[in-house]
């Protein structure tokens, strides 16, 4: 019988602490998001990147409307609450008057790709020195699981009960690919949080995006595919595989653009 190792207290023998429960920038509140939600994992990777680059004391977040709005009171970063879809314009104004700050938006796919598609595209075209972050789960999570502009073909939602059908519902928008094609964008990466390896890769994308913002290289963009078992109407444990099998093949993971701007030593 394999013995269970006690895990209720720190080890007695000499050891180094590598991770201490809640990351420090997320310790000011608790979120009440669903079991298996990928958004806290993404936000953790983002905040750890900010801290690793020592940018915390000049970082501001412009947060959209969705499940992730909960982070406005659970993340220890200055927050500017925007309306649905409007974060990129607020981020533009804020960054222009606080150019030494690091400004990022945090928006879901319903927010950024449905309501606010115009705003993010124009911000990219203008080369605004902000980082727009897209938490993409292919549904309107907060309102209960409806189709967004990124919902993939075959995905069942409350308004595509038989699965998204191109004839009736059109095709998903692959926003990272569009942003990569806009001249003003300096970095475009699409990552995911369905495995620890992908989370580590995502962390590198966030670091690169913020590094480039700090260097004034232009508009940076990070899209994160996140699990939403509730919005996908699957078991919590099936979330990561659902993402891998249905979202990743369409919204492909990887760095789509990096202007290779030389940043500090």
């Amino acid at each position, binding site marked *: 019988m394999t013995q269970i190792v006690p895990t209720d207290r720190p080890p007695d023998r000499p050891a180094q602490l590598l991770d201490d429960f809640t990351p420090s920038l997320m310790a000011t509140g608790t979120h009440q998001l669903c079991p298996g939600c990928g958004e806290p994992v993404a936000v953790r990777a983002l905040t750890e990147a900010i801290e690793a680059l020592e940018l915390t004391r000049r970082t501001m977040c412009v947060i959209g409307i969705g499940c992730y709005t909960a982070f406005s*009171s659970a993340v220890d970063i200055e927050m500017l609450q925007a309306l649905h879809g*409007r974060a990129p314009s607020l981020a533009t104004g804020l960054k222009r008057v606080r150019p030494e700050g690091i400004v990022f938006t945090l928006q879901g796919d319903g927010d950024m790709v449905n309501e606010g598609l115009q705003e993010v595209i124009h911000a990219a075209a203008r080369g605004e020195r902000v980082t727009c972050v897209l938490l993409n789960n292919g549904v309107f999570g907060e309102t209960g699981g409806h189709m967004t502009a990124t919902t993939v073909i075959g995905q069942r939602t409350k308004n595509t009960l038989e699965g998204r059908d191109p004839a009736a519902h059109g095709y998903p928008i692959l926003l990272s690919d569009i942003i990569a094609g806009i001249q003003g964008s300096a970095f475009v990466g699409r990552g995911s949080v369905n495995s620890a390896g992908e989370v580590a890769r995502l962390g590198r994308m966030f670091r690169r995006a913020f590094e480039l913002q700090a260097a004034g290289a232009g508009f940076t963009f990070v899209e994160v595919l996140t699990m939403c078992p509730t919005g996908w109407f699957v078991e919590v444990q099936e979330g990561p595989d659902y993402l891998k099998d249905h979202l990743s093949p369409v919204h492909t993971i990887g760095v789509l653009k990096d202007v290779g701007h030389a940043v500090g030593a």
Partner: protein
Amino acid sequence: MEGAEAIAEAMVAAGCRFFAGYPMTPFTEVLEGMARLLPAVGGVCINAESELEAVGMAWGAAAGGVRAATGSVGQGLSLMQESLSEACNAQVPLVVLNMARGQGDYFQATRGGGHGDYRHIVLAPADITEAIRTVQLAFHLADEWRNPVTVLGDYYLAHVQEAVDPGPIDFGELPPKDWALDGASSGSGAAKVVSPLRGDGPAGSYGDHLARMGERVKAMERSVEPLVESGHTDGAELVVVAYGTPGRYVRYVVSRMRAAGVPVGFVRPINLWPFPYEAVARAAEGAAPWPCTSSTPGRCSTTCGSRCAACPCRSSVASATTAPGSASPPTSASRR
């Protein structure tokens, strides 16, 4: 200089360092003026791709602690309504210019075209000299109350030329903007938040926040200084009420009629919200009621008529169909 240019100069003189707008006649020249003036003083002017983005950018800039403004005409302000509503609950100081077109935007400005039972402070200058002052006052009031202030102008104001001096006017001390964002409180355990969903303090109930914002509306109603111009009201049997640029015509016509012996006077509210009820009633005391005139006859009269039982204007609200500038008294005139 032309009105639009003078307004731009006045904004810069007031310390406005961020402006965003979308071209629309007759607002466009203000945007052009700001595009020319702001870079020279280290400010930013953005030709936004839509009115929605213009108001968003101004909101973001204001949240960063800078005096920020946007504007349009009534139709463009219609597009901005969600943001103009929520900016009140977010307690973001913003100056909003409406260089109104012919249709008149009194209700939009004073009743709010958006959701949430909010109010903007509304100022309506009659000429360029006054516009220079009211624009600067708007920034002061916006900062004082942490609420958007709308300056209601029009095509005439934008395009008339007058000799004016758009120098800075000091309206007094204001508290520092320690609520504004710059990133410095991130990681401190108490990072600042600017949000329409809650106040600056710890996250409490949305209902509590809305109640506080409602109280702030009442406080503005009580405390914003009423601004009114009146003339020839002594012994007047009729008093004409008008706001904005038509007020200039009314002022002129009334003085000519007085010179010809007609017992007529005028009162011109400069604040449209909070509406200076007592000042208007005092100016009109003893006179016959007269339907309010403006570029859209009768609109302003719904403010008086629906609210102030003692106001002499009230009884003629129903017949408020006289064209602006007309000098003939209503046939149903009656004394108080």
